[in-house]
């Protein structure tokens, strides 16, 4: 497991360790099966096109979970994700598969974040973060916020 983050190690404006992700048609099918969202908008290009979104789009809730992972990877196991929010501001389109297990060349998404506030409340050590997903063009498609309780070296 990644190293543990301590409250004392964090400063306002610090970067949350970026998490790269590649959305693929394969991943969207897995997500449909795991989440129970079988809307064909996310796996059928002609249906998606009839809905005015060109081709299949990435589930908002999958992007939400990428951002959850961004936080849980960064804060480490001894920390607790306390609050989380995100908005599905813009659509994202997955890469198609080139082979059975590898995607075509294309976009890589980056989940990113930065610390906006650091404080102690009722004896707990908190950090607030701004978090977001950038598409391959560097545009933010999914902005959000997160609050975590970190362990303290005391």
């Amino acid at each position, binding site marked *: *497991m990644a190293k543990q983050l301590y409250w004392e190690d964090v400063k306002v404006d610090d970067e949350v360790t970026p998490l790269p*992700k590649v959305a693929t048609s394969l*991943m969207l099918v*897995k*997500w449909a*099966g*795991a*989440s*129970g*969202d*079988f*809307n*064909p908008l996310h796996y059928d290009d002609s249906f998606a096109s009839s809905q005015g979104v060109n081709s299949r789009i990435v589930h*908002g*809730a*999958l992007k*939400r*979970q*990428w951002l*959850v*992972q961004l936080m*849980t*990877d960064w804060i480490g*196991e*001894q920390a*607790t*994700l*306390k*609050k*989380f*929010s*995100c*908005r*599905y501001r813009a659509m994202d389109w997955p890469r198609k598969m080139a082979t059975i297990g590898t995607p075509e060349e294309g976009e890589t998404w980056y989940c990113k974040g930065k610390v906006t506030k650091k404080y102690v409340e009722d004896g707990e050590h908190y950090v607030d973060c701004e978090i977001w997903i950038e598409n391959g063009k560097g545009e933010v498609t999914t902005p*959000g916020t997160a609050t975590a309780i970190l362990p303290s070296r005391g």
Partner: protein
Amino acid sequence: MLPEEVTKFIGQGAGATVAEVEKGAIKRFADAVDDANPVYWDEEYARNSRYGSLIAPPGFFGWPAKLPRGAIFQRPTDVSDAAESRGGLGLALAKAGYPRGLDGGIEYEFFCPVCAGDILTVKSVIKDIVEREGKTGNMAFLIVETTYHNQNGALVAIARATSIQR
């Protein structure tokens, strides 16, 4: 101004549904996200962690309890057990000029971890419905709050999901 046929749904709730957080469902979920965290995958590792067992990623509450057999999908703003009331709201929103709903986003507050094998009681309530002016015309925001309690009666999480109706 939203008509009373729409706003009368604010505060309306639903009966509780129950979701079992199965180990296999946790792994399938973590796999779909491509999240290799051993607390979702490795039983022995998880047993020796602060959690004492495999846990679910924050945001996973078991296979969606609200999903009826044969359903294609359900938005987080759909209200469990209140098919009638939700259906009525859908019709009322359509009549008010907002026939289509889009998943707008979600907020979570987490109170305790969800462990493999937990049985969660899931309750949703229509928290608010507000109209706002947008660049491309008016929109209605439907906010549904869902609470999750575990088998010990502990509050696990609160989710507030927004559907943008146009």
